[in-house]
């Protein structure tokens, strides 16, 4: 089995040159003007946070909220790492956008046949043995591409050899981890990384307990309702029989008098 690929983004090294953004736009044939936030024509952007630069892109979660939310399974996590979107299945319900904890998926609001747009970790290039366009374009190797395990080792060795790094790799465990990893010399919460809403648990665990209970509830509810129906039917039968009996007795009494 092919090893899972990933990106390691080093916020300390990033110089904010936007090469990754431009390379991504060129690959997808979009105009190369930089955009302030992610959009349907910007799958990654570089945001300035103080004097640091933080890349925004799909985190390619191991157990993605978007994939669990999609009613038609148009989004799925591949073994190779990328979370990919199948436009042929999508119905355009936009539940993935509500579900994503990083607010990544974007929609083509202006189109008459709109689709969801997001980074696919250059899945076609990866399959061809190449690295992602953004990693290839980075002049200072602030974004590097490789096997996920190797990148985690690389990140730890950077943290160990340089005391200015925060001793944490964002993306290894948050929300169950993902294929995009960050290291930084500034605490992550100061760079706009929000606390993970479910800690290190994948987001789909929020719904799986409610959904998992439903068969039990249905079976129990069905049994109770059937039992109640049987009881009320029986009571009605008894009442009917008694009423008929009464009517007959009254009739006989009437005949006698």
């Amino acid at each position, binding site marked *: 089995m092919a090893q899972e690929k990933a990106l390691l983004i080093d916020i300390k090294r990033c110089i904010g040159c936007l090469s990754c953004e431009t390379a991504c736009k060129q690959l997808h044939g979009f105009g190369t003007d930089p955009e302030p936030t*992610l*959009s349907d024509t910007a799958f990654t952007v570089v945001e300035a946070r103080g004097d640091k630069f933080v890349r925004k892109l799909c985190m390619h979660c191991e157990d993605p*909220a978007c994939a*669990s*939310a*999609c*009613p*038609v*399974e*148009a989004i799925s996590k591949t073994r190779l790492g990328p979370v990919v979107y199948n436009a042929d*299945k*999508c*119905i*355009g*319900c*936009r*539940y993935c*956008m*509500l*579900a994503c*904890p990083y*607010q990544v*998926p*974007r*929609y083509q*609001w*202006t*189109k*008459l*046949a*709109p*689709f969801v747009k997001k980074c696919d970790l250059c899945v076609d290039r990866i399959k061809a043995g190449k690295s992602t366009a953004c990693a290839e374009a980075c002049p200072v190797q602030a974004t590097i591409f490789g096997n996920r395990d190797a990148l985690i080792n690389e990140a730890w060795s950077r943290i160990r050899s340089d005391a200015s790094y925060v001793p944490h790799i964002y993306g290894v465990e948050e929300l169950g981890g993902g294929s995009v990893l960050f290291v930084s010399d500034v605490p992550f919460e100061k760079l706009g990384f*929000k*606390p993970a*809403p*479910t800690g290190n648990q994948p*987001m*789909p665990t*929020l*719904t*799986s*307990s*409610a*959904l998992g209970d*439903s068969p039990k*509830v*249905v079976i129990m*509810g*069905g049994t109770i*309702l*059937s039992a*109640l*129906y049987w009881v*009320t*039917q029986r*009571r*009605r039968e008894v009442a*009917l029989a*008694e*009423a008929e009996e009464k009517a007959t007795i009254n009739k006989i009494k009437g005949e006698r008098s």
Partner: protein
Amino acid sequence: MFARIKSEITLWRVIVAIIFVTGLYATYIRFFQGFRASTNLSDQMPWGLWVGLGTLCGIGLSAAGFGISAAVYLLGMERYRPILRSAILISFLGYMTVCVGYLYEIGLPWRFWHPIVMWNHRSVLFDVCVCIMTYTTVLTFEFAPAVIEKLPWQRFRETVLHYHHKILVAVVLAGVLLSSMHQSFLGGLYLIARGKLHPLWYSPYMHAMFYLSAIPAGLALTVMAIYLCMRSLNVRVDFSILNDCGRMIQLLLIVYAFFKVLDLIANQAFGYAFQFTHEAGYFWLEVLLFLAIPIIMLSFESVRGNPERLYWACAFVVAGFMVDRLNVSINALQTAMGTHYVPKWSELASSVLVIAAGVIAFRYAVIYLDILPKASSKPPQRWIGNAGLAAQA
């Protein structure tokens, strides 16, 4: 001639005409110019009024159908049989409006059938889709006799109704389970929005809260509809039934209030209600309309015993319920999503068009079919069943 035409123009007809013209124009914009032209939806607010008003309120307010059919068919509460058909009709039309609204909501409406063949068991939305489709079929089945008994072919009529009656209870049972499931799954949709939804509404038991609030709201809408039918159409319903419904609504609201308080305590969210924020304001508006006013009003016999006052108490329940669903779907999300969403006129116009079509269909069904007991003629025998013996006993 002119005078006759003039006499046909009434206030309500003018309003309906305006709703249809604006609604159809909004529909044209939606399907021929796209979302950007017809909505204020954005990447920060992917779901707006169509989901909040159309789907969440539409399904929730249609909850009476399963509630009353469970009471009558399964629990033997024969007393409510006169209002059974109207409750089923409201549910049926409510689900129809949701099915039509679904085509507005999704970006690729010609793929509406995809959830039937492309399954994702882990998706709450998939379960909602499947339940709504199945339950709409069940409601069609439950409502069908009202149409079939008006058909001119006697043999066909009798055969169909005979077999219909045989499997009815099983279908009702399935319907009760299905609708219980997706009423709660609608709340379950927001379980995954943890961290985005404001803590006054987010709860790991959101699905249960949605279920508990939908039943009184659906019942309240049914009472309102029946009151309006009695006022404007040739319909007479024993008012003590509606009085009892009022009592039931109050009880269900108290149960909901109890669990809502428990839920807020368990989530340690009570503090948010006393902050000076928009969310706190919307929360108190919801508490006032959905819980405080109706619970107090319905505790007076003078309100429950008076049709018009009962109507207004129910109107508060329905309005409060709509505030609750719009809070969850729109207001509770705005802060975390960093956006301010106000629906565009065309979103409102198209939603109102679909709802108005449902209301008009209800009116003509009540006029032409045996939905509610008519004032001038006796109700059909089959409503009482067993020639009235069971009811007498």
